[in-house]
């Protein structure tokens, strides 16, 4: 499993650097903007911008590793290695987990820089929730479908997965005050962890029944 995990990190290495530069650029851009406007950047805006960029970055890179695997016929090769089907699935979930955690930490750091030490606990939780937990939730939905049907046939699910947060935010737009944000923030890590674990077991079952292409 370690080898497969290492392979994914190698694959995103080059693109990761480019996208990381992009993230650094946005951080510097907002930092300069905040300094020039006499008041610290609005925490909600900063958290939103940094986390959104982080999530896009995570999505692009995670999906790229799946696409690379499929295009290079790696999946068939991986089945010839002494890792087992559960090992193949497990390596991908572990990659998503570690990468999301790393991006969460990076987003937190970026926000701390932007807010110039005025970061509240809620700001930190919001950044972590968006940049770390949301990729876990979205991958928890996406990966079982990928392991059942393959990435090529999963494009429509991808679109749906991206629509879910947009639909949710639209639905809650006029009722923001009534939403129990504190409770959601408190329980979301546990809910995301349960969903992610459940998704892993489901993917293992689905991949066990799927034949190599």
């Amino acid at each position, binding site marked *: 499993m370690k080898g497969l995990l290492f392979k994914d990190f190698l694959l995103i290495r080059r693109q990761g650097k480019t996208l990381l530069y992009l993230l650094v650029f946005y951080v510097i851009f907002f930092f300069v903007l905040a300094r020039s406007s006499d008041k610290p950047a609005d925490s909600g805006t900063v958290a939103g911008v940094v986390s959104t960029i982080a999530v896009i970055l995570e999505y692009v890179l995670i999906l790229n590793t799946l696409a690379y695997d499929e295009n290079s016929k790696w999946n068939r090769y991986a089945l010839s290695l*002494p890792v087992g089907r559960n090992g193949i699935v497990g390596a991908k979930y572990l990659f998503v987990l570690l990468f999301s955690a790393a991006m969460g930490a990076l987003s937190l750091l970026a926000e701390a820089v932007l807010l110039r030490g005025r970061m509240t606990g809620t700001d930190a939780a919001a950044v972590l929730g968006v940049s770390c937990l949301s990729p876990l939730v979205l991958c928890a939905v996406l990966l079982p479908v990928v392991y059942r049907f393959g990435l090529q046939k999963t494009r429509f699910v991808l679109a749906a997965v991206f629509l879910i947060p947009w639909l949710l935010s639209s639905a809650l737009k006029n009722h923001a005050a009534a939403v129990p944000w504190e409770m959601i923030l408190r329980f979301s890590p546990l809910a995301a962890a349960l969903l992610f674990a459940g998704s892993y077991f489901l993917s293992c079952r689905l991949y066990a029944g799927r034949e190599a292409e």
Partner: protein
Amino acid sequence: MENLLEIRGLCRSYAGFSLEDVSFSLPAGSIMGLVGENGAGKTTTIRLILNELRREGGSVRIFGEDNIRGEIRAKEQIGVVFDECCFHGGLRAGDVGEILRRVFKTWDGALFGKYRREFELPEKKKISEYSRGMKMKLSIAAALAHRPRLLILDEATSGLDPVARSGILDILLDFIQDERRGVLFSSHITSDLERIADFVTYLHAGRVVFSRPKDDLLDRCGILRCGASQLGGLDKSGFVRFLRGPTECAALVEDKDAARKKYPGLVIDPASLDEIMLLYAKGEQP
């Protein structure tokens, strides 16, 4: 002699194709050529051996153990080369070594480096910049560097020029010098198999036509040639298959020496694997 691979009654069907009752064994110290036309079932057989596909009947034993029950243990000692290089083009040879070092317990980095230098594979060059021959050599180096006992190649020489193919065949001959090892080599390039195989298993339309020592096959079998007008008057009981042409006919005979005695006035040539395959695939049964 110990069998590295034993396949008995292997079955699998798809829409429009079925692999039926496939049986053969690969003894240690030998190269088994799995030969057959495109779509004969060679790749399906290999996929079933590797448990990439579910079998519907029969058994596959690798190193004496069922291939599903002992899958991980067996795969620690198997090297596999497919018809395409399965490493992403953005990776480099050095990356492949680093990945597989973390996969195989018995990975030998020094051996991988030795193969890499022997095959003239630049460590820092991207795989996407390699030629097809170099990619296949990288796949072979990756398959050999954990010192497997069984090497499985699925059409690994297809699409390569003769020089690159010859190089790969030399590697296989070198690999088999250790008699505890074996190679299962699927190909439709019969000249490759004639050069290196100890045994030949011929698959046609999902069934094993024969599985026997190559030397026995090529030494014994012959092709009888006669004019179209002569064919009708011949006793066809010694023919395995025969093919009618507009002017000339050819028949596959199991024992060419016996056939020379039986048909003294006719030409009987040694049979090549190509001709044997052609006659089995297109010929009539007597």
